C-alpha cells in the first residue's frame, strides 16, 4: 500500500522537499502538479489572492479523496497534497499534488482526479484582490449535493 500525506498550511510550499523525498522503487512515474496564482481571471487584472480554509475538515476531505483515488488505482500510489492558505502573490504556488505510481497512465489519471475533487469538495476559499482596488470571494462549487466533473472548471486562472 502506498502512502498519503495531506496538509493545509500557511507556509510556502517546498516543491524541492516533495521531489527529493524517497521514491518507491516500484514507481516508474512521478507527477508533480502545481497550481499558481495567475494575474488575470475572467478579464480582471489580479494582483494577489487570499486563501482561507476550514482546516480540520479540509484535511479530512482531502485524505478521503486521496484514499478513494488510491483504492481505485490499486493502492500502490504515493500521494502528497498540499494547499496554501493566507496571502499569496502572483506566481506563488497555491496547491501541489504529487503522485508516484508504477506507470504514467495511473499517475496522470490520479493527479487529475485528485485536483478536480479538491476543487469541488475541499472547504477552501479564495479571495481575489484586483489591480483596481476591488476584491471578491469567489464562489465555485456548492458542498450540498454537487457532483464533481472530471472536466473541471476554469473559474480561476491558476488551476
Amino acid at each position, binding site marked *: 500500500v502506498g502512502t498519503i500525506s495531506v496538509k493545509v498550511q500557511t507556509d510556502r510550499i517546498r516543491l524541492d522537499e516533495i521531489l527529493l523525498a524517497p521514491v518507491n522503487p516500484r514507481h516508474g512515474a512521478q507527477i508533480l502538479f502545481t497550481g499558481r496564482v495567475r494575474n488575470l481571471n475572467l478579464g480582471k487584472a489580479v494582483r494577489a489572492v487570499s486563501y482561507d480554509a476550514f482546516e480540520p475538515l479540509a484535511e479530512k476531505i482531502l485524505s478521503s479523496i486521496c484514499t478513494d483515488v488510491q483504492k481505485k488505482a490499486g493502492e500502490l500510489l504515493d500521494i502528497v497534497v498540499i494547499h496554501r492558505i493566507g496571502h499569496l502573490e502572483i506566481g506563488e504556488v497555491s496547491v501541489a499534488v504529487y503522485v508516484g505510481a508504477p506507470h504514467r497512465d495511473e499517475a496522470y489519471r490520479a493527479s487529475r482526479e485528485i485536483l478536480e475533487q479538491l476543487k*469541488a469538495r475541499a472547504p477552501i*476559499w479564495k479571495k481575489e484582490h484586483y489591480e483596481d482596488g476591488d476584491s471578491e470571494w469567489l464562489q465555485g462549487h456548492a*458542498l450540498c449535493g454537487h457532483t464533481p466533473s472530471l472536466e473541471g472548471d476554469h473559474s480561476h486562472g*491558476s488551476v
Partner: protein
Amino acid sequence: MKARLRLFGEFRNFTDSAEIEVPVNDGFTVEDLKSQAAVQLGKLRPGYDLERLLSRSAVADENRILDPKELIGDHRWFALLPPVSGG
C-alpha cells in the same frame, strides 16, 4: 441557548468577526440552524441576496458535512460553508 457558527468565504463580508451566534435548542435540525443564521446575517447585510447564497451553503462540524434534516442535539459549534473555490 446559543450556537456558534464560524464563517468562511463570502460570509466573511457580513461581519468583521469570524463567527456569529444564533439562538438554538436541542430539537433544532441543521436546516433550522440555517434559518436562524439567515435572520442574524440578514441584519448584518441588508439587501444582499442571502437566500441564494444560503441555499448553496452547507453546515459542517470538524468531521463532516451535516445533513440538513439531522438534529443538532447538544452540539453548539458549527461552520457555515459557502460554495468552495480552492485550487
